[in-house]
């Protein structure tokens, strides 16, 4: 009886091992395989919000709202005013130092701010002549943006607030005077 040749044995062993290794690749595909993700949605670099105004107690409150970015302006009480920006998802980082800037026809300004745990960016200022002027600039229309590490929120285009905003501004001016 002839002994199998070493070559054949090696070949068989190789093929056997190869078969064993190839088995998984032959298994049916997982039914839960993740669908190919769509190309990442192009985040608009700028969105346009719409104004609304309110006077409540000792506060004058204005909002420029868009689904991707909302700015709230609160004047008073205590001679303070604040800007607060919120955006969905994670386009604003949590607990970071940021800068809130505005560019418009009336003027440009930049305020240091911070995001909180809920990823809302805010900056406050004294409601003096400068602060009042910043709000006035904002009411004239322009663009508000948040900048800083981890920020991917779009810029917010702020339309001219029109007569409603100019009427509301009287509330801000009263806060300054008081």
């Amino acid at each position, binding site marked *: 009886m002839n002994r199998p040749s070493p070559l054949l044995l090696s070949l068989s062993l190789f093929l056997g091992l190869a078969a064993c290794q190839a088995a998984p690749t032959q298994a049916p595909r997982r039914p839960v395989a993740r669908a190919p993700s769509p190309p990442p949605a192009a985040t608009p670099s700028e969105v346009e919000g*719409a*104004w*609304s*105004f*309110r*006077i*409540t*107690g000792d506060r004058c409150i204005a909002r420029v709202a868009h689904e991707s970015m909302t700015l709230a302006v609160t004047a008073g009480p205590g001679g303070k005013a604040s800007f607060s920006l919120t955006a969905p998802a994670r386009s604003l980082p949590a607990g970071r130092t940021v800068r809130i800037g505005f560019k418009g*026809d*009336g003027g440009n300004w930049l305020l240091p701010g911070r995001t909180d745990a809920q990823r809302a960016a805010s900056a406050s200022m004294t409601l003096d002549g400068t602060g009042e002027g910043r709000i*006035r600039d904002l*009411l*004239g229309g322009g663009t508000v943006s948040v900048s800083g590490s981890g920020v991917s929120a779009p810029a917010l285009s702020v*339309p*001219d*607030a*029109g*007569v*409603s*905003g*100019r*009427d509301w*501004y*009287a509330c801000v*001016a009263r806060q300054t005077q008081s």
Partner: protein
Amino acid sequence: MVTEPNSTSQAAGNTAPVPHAAWTAARRDILEAFAAGEHLVALIGPSGVGKSLLLREIENSLRSPEFPVLRLERAEWVDAAVAPQVLLVDDAGRMADTALKQLANRVVGFTVVIGLPSFRARLETLPHRVVELGPLRPADVAAYVALRLTRMGLDRARLARGTLEALAEAAGGIPGQMNLLIGASFLVADMAGSQEVRPEHVNEAAALRAESLGLPAEGAPTVAPPEMAVEAEPPPAPSQQPAQPAEPAAPPPAGLSAASSQPPGARPAVPLLDRLRDALADRPWAERLSGVAAVIVISAGLGWLLFSDFRGPSQPMGPIAPQAPLHALGPPPTAEGASVPGTAMAEAPQQAPQQAGAESTPAAPAEQATGAALPTGAMVRVVITYPRGIAEATQRASALSSELDRAGLSVGEPFPISRPPSGPELSYFFREDRDAALRVRQAGAAQLGQTAPRLGPVGTTLPRPGTIELGLPASAGASDERPPPAEEPEMPAPSAAILSGPHDGAVLSAEAGQQGVTLSWLAPGETEPGCCFVEVVAIGGWEGRPREVFAGYAEAADQQLVRLNRPGRYAWRVLTVSRAARRYTATPWRHFVLGEAPP
């Protein structure tokens, strides 16, 4: 006749004062005297100049829970010892000297007495301030006439060139005379079959009127000058009690009152009627009929003007009890009479809401007792814009702001804009606010001239009812060159909301206020968010005047959460707004108390 403390004047449309420069200055002076702690002010002016209306305005301005106001209309007198803190005396020329002395010697309180110029001499020995109410300035006439015509429903376009000047001259700048002459001039023009009301119609009306009063028609002033009215007041005998009205506050309108009601003692107006008869006799039937109709309508209108403007809208309230506590006037004791500081009032919408029926029945008496003192129309606020970066324009805006402020209007800080209009622009944003815009124009006539108020454009954000915007151009001399606005079909005003809670007179805990008071209502028709503007005012704050604590378009169509941190009394209402019709309708004010029971 006496109005009881904190009673409310009926502010019907045509009886609302038309502020002009002299009127505004007098009002300011009186309020300054009050603020300075003075005790006696004499408001002096010729007959028909608007003293009584101004007194009612002062009453509305000063009335508050802290300052009960008593207004005496026929110089009836009450003991100074029991008179309320603020005492307003119309027709004080009839008062006895002893009573005047009592007034002047009051160590507390504030008194305004009204009289013709001859009354001044009687006060010489008494400590007092004199405030004079003068006639219309020539610059004010155009705006005044425009507003009167609007209120009378007469077409301004019928005024020919020179008619305004003729009216001003014939009336001597006296608003009361002007009111009568406007209607009479239109009547004379109608009688003459003229579409235009020309200066000769004014002169004819003035002559007819002078004739009916027995005044010389030729070569003499066609309208009784103030001095003549002064002479009409007989000097009272010392300690004389008033027996009859002394001040001929309203001369009969050109004898037309003969057809309706002739004041006792007045000469019959036969000559005028004869003229009218003659005028009609020569005309065909159709013209006669229209002429007769015109006579009836205008007579009725003038009669109404006569009795609403000059007899005074206040209702006799019977015997007074000046010392009566405020809450005796009716539940709840929210005698919040003063208007919101710095706000004027828009005319109540023509289609007034059926508030009374809409309210729950227990609320109605309280509404009537207290709600009418707060504005029934929107709170008017003026926004001034000026070109950014032009110092001269900034000064103009500031001057205009001061001028309007002196006129008692609420004016915001002037606002710089990048794209100013080429000429002055005066905009209102709801049809109900057009009359308010006219008043603004009148008060700011120096800069606005004859700028026609227009329904301004609104963007995505609807302005608040009562907003008036004044846009100043870069150049001071520019005028509004835009073509007249096209007539637009007027759509009906929205229905008033039906307020549901909290109910009138409700007492809520202070804690509830901090958590938020839910104001709820039913908005008929449109129920979208943004349909309704909510206003909440605190009552009895600084100087007792209402203070705005919430104002904004409601987030929901039928409710609004309002957080209130301070105990006190509050009033609230809802204005339903129609963007399509550019109109609004306000509910009556409702009241509630936070954190304390009514005293």
